[in-house]
């Protein structure tokens, strides 16, 4: 995916001129919706995302909810753009406020042409470019409950943006059809109430016009959904997890998908149980995964080391949030990398793979299952809150490249042909053939103790060295099989950018901003973070004058890892960091590069 430079000049409008003057046409529109938890801000977000999607726009919706079910301020934003985007816009065009806090927070980012729609039931705003509607009161009378105020607000928004009325309605039908006929009917009424109120308000109808796009083939999805789907297609059939934000949806999707494929999903009593359940299931011969976030990862660390030493393939999806401790459960950070690279007591091999967007997450999840089994070790699938939970348009997931590689797994025929079965046999690539329990005529001993080839506990120093080398060298031998980095921008650019995970979206947009200023950049999106792909990043650093490593943490963890593994290129590495719980916007990266040391 590349982001072209911002287009300048008139763009075709989807609706006629505004009543009070010409509509401002928007090819890249950002709406922030805020209110108290339970006000339904996420519903408005979802409805808008669906509408933009129907217009063929690229969509990026991010939520910024507090970790509670009801109460407390929560806000979200939706962006629709004619050009591919995967980041939050630097400005907000419209704020929808169900509480005064939404305006307080949002007005600093409101564009000069921006407008505020708010629910005047409980407060008033004196901002010039604003219109208040008592949504809660308007719907409360005819519909009996104020909760439909969110759909009424969507109705008002549709008028403000000059949305096509039939398509606006179709979105409501699509969203509420599966609930109940009553819910659909009430929401359709609420939509009309909101539309009517807005149509009568001066300065509101057709104030903006949103262009159409051509992203009609795209799907609307999240990283967590992509991981769940990748797991199913990659042959994953056993999942155990423990609810934790922002990873829970992986388990919830799999609860829906897996039973139809003979799979099993269990919610465990804690993360210790979850990781050990997948270890047991993998040993039995299933393809397995768990998903978690920081605090759960800390508990799972014990099991991950065990899996590596016992050579049991597992995949752990870590959806990073702000840490340490409980940190900020709903906020974005990329601060688990140092921990993961040095995970656990003792020394053992692991792969850390980091997809950038849902499409990538689908592919990398499938690959992580293959790699775990091919090399018989733990694979960490590294996500972050924004990738996990933000909704974005994506190219349809590609099944043509999907494949299942079970490595040196022995089928009963191959097992029967063996003269002897050593479960930890020394081989040229360090991987021993494995036959799961139940294979007729043979059995094995598996252990986290240091062991000999038969799996018998061993304290023999020569054996210890051979076994350590067998396991550790997997990281060297597997290098060419690990997901390759991706490159964007002209190959001869002298300024480099390096990033991973959802940070890729704003980096690509920053490249476009810089290109428009006449500054070409080359971006390396790392998809394997550990073992560090020095064979890719080394030559990349050699070609540029300097490279900015962009990441969401305090210490510049990836930059440090690169400096540590490539000390001779130390001087070329600059660090751009953000650690306030928010994702980068393109403007932040550009500003960060200007001030980076």
């Amino acid at each position, binding site marked *: 995916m590349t982001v072209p430079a911002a287009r300048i000049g008139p763009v075709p409008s989807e609706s006629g001129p505004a009543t009070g003057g010409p509509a401002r046409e928007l090819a890249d529109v950002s709406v922030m919706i805020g209110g108290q938890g339970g006000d339904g801000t996420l519903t408005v977000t979802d409805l808008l995302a669906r509408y933009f999607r129907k217009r063929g726009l690229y969509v990026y919706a991010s939520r910024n909810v507090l970790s509670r079910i009801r109460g407390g301020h929560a806000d979200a934003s939706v962006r629709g753009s004619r050009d591919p985007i995967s980041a939050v816009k630097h400005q907000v065009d419209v704020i929808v406020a169900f509480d005064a806090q939404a305006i307080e927070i949002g007005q600093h980012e409101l564009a000069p042409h921006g407008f505020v729609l708010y629910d005047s039931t409980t407060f008033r705003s004196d901002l010039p470019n604003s219109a208040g509607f008592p949504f809660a009161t308007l719907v409360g009378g005819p519909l009996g409950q104020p909760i439909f105020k969110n759909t009424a607000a969507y109705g008002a928004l549709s008028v403000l943006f000059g949305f096509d009325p039939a398509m606006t309605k179709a979105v409501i039908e699509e969203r509420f059809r599966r609930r109940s006929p009553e819910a659909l009917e009430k929401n359709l009424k609420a939509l009309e109430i909101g539309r009517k109120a807005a149509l009568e308000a001066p300065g509101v109808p057709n104030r903006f016009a949103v262009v159409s796009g051509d992203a009609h083939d795209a799907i609307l999805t999240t990283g967590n959904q992509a991981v769940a789907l990748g797991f199913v297609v990659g042959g994953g059939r056993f999942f155990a997890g423990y609810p934790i934000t922002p990873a829970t949806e992986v388990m919830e999707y799999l609860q829906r998908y897996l039973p139809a494929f*003979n799979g099993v999903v269990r919610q465990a009593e804690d993360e210790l149980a979850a990781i050990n359940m997948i270890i*047991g*299931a993998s*040993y039995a011969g299933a393809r397995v995964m768990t998903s978690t976030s920081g605090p759960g990862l800390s508990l799972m660390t014990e099991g991950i080391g065990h899996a590596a030493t016992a050579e049991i393939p597992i995949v752990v999806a870590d959806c990073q949030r702000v840490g340490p401790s409980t940190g900020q459960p709903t906020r974005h950070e990329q601060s688990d990398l140092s921990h993961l690279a040095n995970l656990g007591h003792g020394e053992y091999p692991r792969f850390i793979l980091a997809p950038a967007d849902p499409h990538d997450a689908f592919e990398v999840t499938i690959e992580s299952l293959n790699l775990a089994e091919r090399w018989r070790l733990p694979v960490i699938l590294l996500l972050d809150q924004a990738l996990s939970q933000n909704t974005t348009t994506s190219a349809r997931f590609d099944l043509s490249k999907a494949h299942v590689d079970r490595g040196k797994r022995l089928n009963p025929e191959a097992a029967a042909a063996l003269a002897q079965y050593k479960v930890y046999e020394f081989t040229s690539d360090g991987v021993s053939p494995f036959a799961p329990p139940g294979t007729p*005529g043979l059995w094995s001993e598996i*252990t986290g103790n240091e062991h000999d080839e038969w799996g018998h506990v061993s304290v023999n120093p020569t054996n210890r060295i051979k076994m350590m080398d067998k396991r550790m060298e997997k990281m060297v031998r597997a290098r060419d099989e690990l997901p390759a980095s991706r490159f964007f921008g002209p190959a001869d650019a002298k300024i480099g950018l390096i990033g991973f995970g959802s940070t890729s979206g704003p980096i690509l947009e920053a490249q476009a901003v810089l290109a428009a200023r006449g500054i070409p950049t080359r971006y390396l999106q790392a998809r394997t973070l550990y073992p560090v792909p020095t064979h890719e990043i080394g030559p990349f650093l050699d070609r540029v004058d300097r490279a900015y490593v962009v990441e969401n943490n305090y210490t510049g963890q990836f930059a440090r890892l690169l400096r540590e593994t490539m000390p001779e290129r130390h001087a070329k590495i600059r660090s751009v960091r953000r650690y306030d719980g928010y994702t980068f916007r393109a403007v932040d990266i550009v500003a960060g590069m200007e001030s980076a040391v």
Partner: protein
Amino acid sequence: MTGTLSAKPVPPIWCPGCGDFSVLAAVKKAASNLKIAPHDLVLVGGIGCSGSIHNFLEVNGIHALHGRLLAQAVGVKLANPALTVVAAGGDGDGYAIGMGHFIHAFKKNASILYLVMNNETYGLTKGQASPTSQLGFEGNVEPPFHSILTALSIPAPNFIARTFSGDPKSMIAILEEALRFNREGRGFAFVEDLSPCVTYNDTYKVWREKIIDVTTLTGYDPTDRKAMFRICLEQVEAGRLPVGVMHRPKELAQDGLEVKLLGDRPGPVRTDIRVEPNLAAYQKLLAGMA
């Protein structure tokens, strides 16, 4: 023997006279009586002297992390319900570091056997007080935990029993019943064996005097949870060690977690996971995305 040569058992690491020898012999005998093939039997060992039991048998052995054997055993069973799964460990492993998983195992009710060799001490680390140690043992000031009373307090259709290493005959019969219970998909079987540690807590003599076979007591009815709780509590309070079958469900149903989740379906391991045979279903799944 013919065919593939697999891992050979190693000699037990236990002290001569250790109660765990009885358990090893009983597991071997029960499995052989039920004609369970070694390749279909998985023994999940905990950490501690008793947890090394899988090394001394011709079976599939997996040595779990300290306290995590039940989670691994449940994972094995749910992935391939055709396997017979036995988790075996000690009182420290099960009732201290593994307590959370212990309680949940009854609730989960997967058809696995959990065999705890209770010696009221941490033998491998040289005799510290364990959750079941008596008051005063190695300066212990916490009252001992009682696994059978805890097990009976969880309203799930489990098989619950207690044996004594000094009575291997009864132990074999109970292990056979427990394994049959598992293999018929009825759910979780918990058997605690009183297994003296001859080195750090040699209790053979004392325990032999205190052992009481619950089946001989008035009102004994293992399908009546309330009656069994009362009987056991009375015996415990009287300073005796009740043994025997403490609970078996009145109605023998296929209540095992693996049956509830999978029914007759083969489960995760015995399912074809290649892309090709699943392609149409995958296409349908992806087509459902907005």
